[in-house]
């Protein structure tokens, strides 16, 4: 399965991936319409490293082989697809955030309404279909490919 991998040497910390993620999952038809509304969305990818940090990199779901979030979910809302993607069923999620407690990457978080969790599903759950963050990264600091 293709996953998103980080080349931190090339990350400028521009946060473009976060905006592209919000846009992809917003249902909006144009990026500029996010203007003034970013508070309504929570990106599923997060850039680490503040303004003064020499290091930056983006973190989102690693789709771990033995995903501890799937094993820990109290509601059976998290599962793995046959090809290995970790997915969340919002209808089943009760928002206890046990997944937040166990994810070693800090890559799962409350959604905008705070009532259920959200995570990267590689843009398979929106109209984009392929990771929008990777597509628009100006520096190849995140890539979408097969790796061991």
């Amino acid at each position, binding site marked *: 399965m293709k996953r998103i991998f980080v080349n931190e040497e090339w990350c400028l910390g521009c946060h473009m991936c976060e905006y592209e993620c919000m846009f992809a999952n917003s249902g909006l038809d144009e990026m500029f319409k996010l203007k003034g509304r970013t508070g309504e969305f929570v990106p599923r990818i997060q850039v680490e490293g503040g303004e003064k940090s020499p290091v930056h990199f983006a973190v989102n779901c690693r789709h771990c082989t033995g995903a501890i979030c799937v094993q820990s*979910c109290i509601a059976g809302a998290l599962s793995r697809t046959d090809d290995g993607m970790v997915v969340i069923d919002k209808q089943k999620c009760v928002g206890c955030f046990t997944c937040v407690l166990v994810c070693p990457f800090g890559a799962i978080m409350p959604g905008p309404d705070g009532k259920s969790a959200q995570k990267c599903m590689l843009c398979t759950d929106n109209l984009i279909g392929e990771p929008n963050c990777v597509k628009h990264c100006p520096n190849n600091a995140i890539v979408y490919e097969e790796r061991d």
Partner: protein
Amino acid sequence: MKYTIIGNSTAAVACIEGIRTIDKSGEITVISDEKHHCYGRPTISYCLMGAISRENMKYRPDDFYVKNNVNALLGVRALSIDPSEKCVTLSDGGKVFYDKLLVATGSRPFVPAMEGLDGVKNKFSFMTMDDMDGLEKVLSPKKKVLVIGAGLIGLKCVEGIADRVGQITVVDLADRILPSILDAEGAAIIQRQLEGKGVKFILNDCAAKFEGKKVTLKNSGQEIPFDILVVAVGVRANTELVKNAGGEVNRGIIVDTHMRTSIPDIYSAGDCAEGYDSSIGANRVLALLPNAYFQGRVAGINMAGGEAEQTNAIPMNAIGFFGSHILTAAVYEGECISHIQGDIYKKLFVKDSRLVGFILINDFLRAGIYTQLVRDKVDLGTVDFELLKNAPQLLAYPLGVRKQKLAKKV
């Protein structure tokens, strides 16, 4: 190979999934006295409050048993285990033979002897779907509810029914609410919040005597009228099957890190099992859902001839009430680094250069980065702990470790 599993909750499901990672064709039989398709037990409060539908309480999809080729005997109770014949006797008179057996019988409510309790009509525990159904039938907006026990189960019940009943009063013998996961200061934050929702607390007290729809408390002598009683004082592990079969039990069924009991070919996992807790370096019952899954999976893999071990279990909890969230892990000892501001409450506990535990209330994003430091007993000298004190982040790890985490398949 014939696998038999007594129980049909988290540890049982995990065991099935563990077995099937190795053995796709062995015969699996599940025995459960509950008639229901496996469901997430902690979801009962969410169903009562209308956060999820009954259908969505299912822990695995409808086709789970079929897809995994499991023979599910639901609504029948396992009465005894005969380790010499390697068979389980059922309440309907049947027998199920096994090559490998998992005992995942969970726990049951502990109801202490209280005078007059037998005469109380509407009294409930709050652990199962049947408990939920029974309680739901008697809920109505004017009814007064008395909850004995301000622990995780009692207070989740409170949240579940708060908008569907009149007054709720919670009584607990402890001096604070949620004593198993919170210190006094943290508990006070959550108590204030619940009181803001109209819940009344009486602490340092317990029921002396029930008379119909009235209880008299022991220490304060107060009399409290109620229509519905919920007893959520604690739980006891269901150890009897293994004990009666000659297995070693303490508070729970004693298991090694492979989930083996003292009886050959019998494994145990979940709330009934007493396994290794790495936060205290000894065995104890860790009755929490993720642990039931971890143990069940380890048991299943070993039962199927694979190799798995659970050596890094710790107590950890994520629980919320009315929009507040509490995430906790392991032990609260050593040096405490705290950040408290209004309803935000954060405590990290450091001992021998390790993060040994934490309490996070209402500031919990990315908490799993802390949890991994605790579980893996990471030497804080190898990470930038100053960064971590401020917020959990992977930037605190050295470059090489970060590359392992983010530039490779994990």
